[in-house]
């Protein structure tokens, strides 16, 4: 019997599942990852029509949020930035879910009004997902699963 060699980077299912804290619950979604180790300022740092970071030196400058699982440590800047996410959602340019290290009031209220699932990592670090390609976010079970590293 020939067993297909495991793909490089393959991990057992139990090693691919992480416990998270659910802040805003929503449908279970799965999508490609957009990872930033830098915080995001929604009010002045994001283009509300295109759904991209517009701060020139930012790690994910110019990369669209659309249909991505967006991972970043926390949001910064005015709470009015929540309205920018609401706008993105209306235009279909919003991320499908957000994973924070430690969520903040702006990101939490943004996801609440736009209906975007939001979880944060009370234990563990988001940096382990830097190279993850695809993630399932199950906010109802407070769980995320990395499906492709």
């Amino acid at each position: 019997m020939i067993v297909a060699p495991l793909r490089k980077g393959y991990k057992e299912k139990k090693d691919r599942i992480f416990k998270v804290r659910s802040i805003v619950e929503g449908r279970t979604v799965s999508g490609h990852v957009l990872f930033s180790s830098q915080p995001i300022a929604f009010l002045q740092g994001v283009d509300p029509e295109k759904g991209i970071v517009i701060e020139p030196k930012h790690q994910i400058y110019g990369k669209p949020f659309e249909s991505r699982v967006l991972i970043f440590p926390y949001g910064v800047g005015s709470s009015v930035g929540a309205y920018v996410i609401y706008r993105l959602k209306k235009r279909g340019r919003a991320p499908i879910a957000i994973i924070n290290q430690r969520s903040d009031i702006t990101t939490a209220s943004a996801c609440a009004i736009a209906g975007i699932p939001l979880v944060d990592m009370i234990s563990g670090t988001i940096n382990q997902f830097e190279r993850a390609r695809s993630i399932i976010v199950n906010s109802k079970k407070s769980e995320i699963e990395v499906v492709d590293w």
Partner: protein
Amino acid sequence: MYLSQREERILAGESGEVLQIAYRILLALGRLTNASRLVPIKWAHVSGVSYLTIGDYGLEFLKRIAFSSHSKFKVFTTVNPCGMDVEKWDSLGVSPEYASKQLEIISAYAKLGTASSFTCVPYQSYRVPPAGTHVAWAESSAAIYANSILNLKTNRESAVSALASALTGKTVLSDLHLDENRRPSKNLRLSLKKHERLRGSLDFGILGYFAGSQISGVIGFQNLRGLKSIEEAKALCAAIGTTGSSGMFVLHSKEKVEGIDFTDRDYEGIFEKLSDVERGEAIVFGCPQMTIEEMYSLSKMLYGKKLKKKCLVFCSSKVYESARTRGYATIIESAGATIVRDACADFTPLISVLNVDSVETDSCKGAHYMKRVHGVRVALKTTNEILREAAIAN
């Protein structure tokens, strides 16, 4: 966070989409702050009223909330200053495009049912409930004042969370709503020699600007003398809110916690940081908005005088009405100052349209934001110093 059966049903959408969104916001905040449950409030103060801050996206959201059927605020709700003086925006140089957007925002809030005055000092014009009452106030300077001076209980709400509280009449029971969290986390010891006698808005603004930048939890002042007036407390609260996330201070802390000193050097360092020019081309008073007492003392100083510079005085329409009845407004206006009602010096286009490179003010919060938002340089002076130079006998 625990929700009652009724709250669960509203969250599921039983009472319509607007309340569902409002409860979703409260639930998210409750989870974020580990709240045990929701608590009823008696007063909501919402921010996010100036078109300059909330923009088209805020307006879009607000309209959706306000013009859904049956949408009404459930508790007494006051609103922050808006982006212009509704009656004389034209003569102040505000563009018609901006004005029409601002009027749309105002009508959305009016539909939801708010008090008529736009103010960042709501405690000046409306009856304050008894100590210990839970409220939900956005506008950092007012929230800090509520906790520290009025003994009300509020967290520093955001534009969005205060809106949710106004719609539901509730807030999350966490942080400063709980007595055990209302004790100083760090002390701030006043160790001043040269500036020992802090007096007036400017001095207390500088103290607050420093305290806010050093302590993010409840601030415990030690060896604090002075602070005799509402106006000084208002300046202190505004400056604390400008530089940090603290939501409360205690005037005479006995708590045995780590302490930080406030020295003459700190005082001078802040002054130099905020005041970057000797003289300003225009004068700005009223950040936070003027109290009736401040209108009175301004009118006393301006009586029989003329101002050599443009001067904007910001107050709420309620305070303006009393100032007019008592004759203060006429004196101030006869001296050449413009009284701007219901607007904010920092987050409106009113300073930008003055077309000046520098302003004079007695407000540390005003200095901080006018530099950043309007790109002007600031001369920080006491009201006396400003008028001694700018007001000449008629």
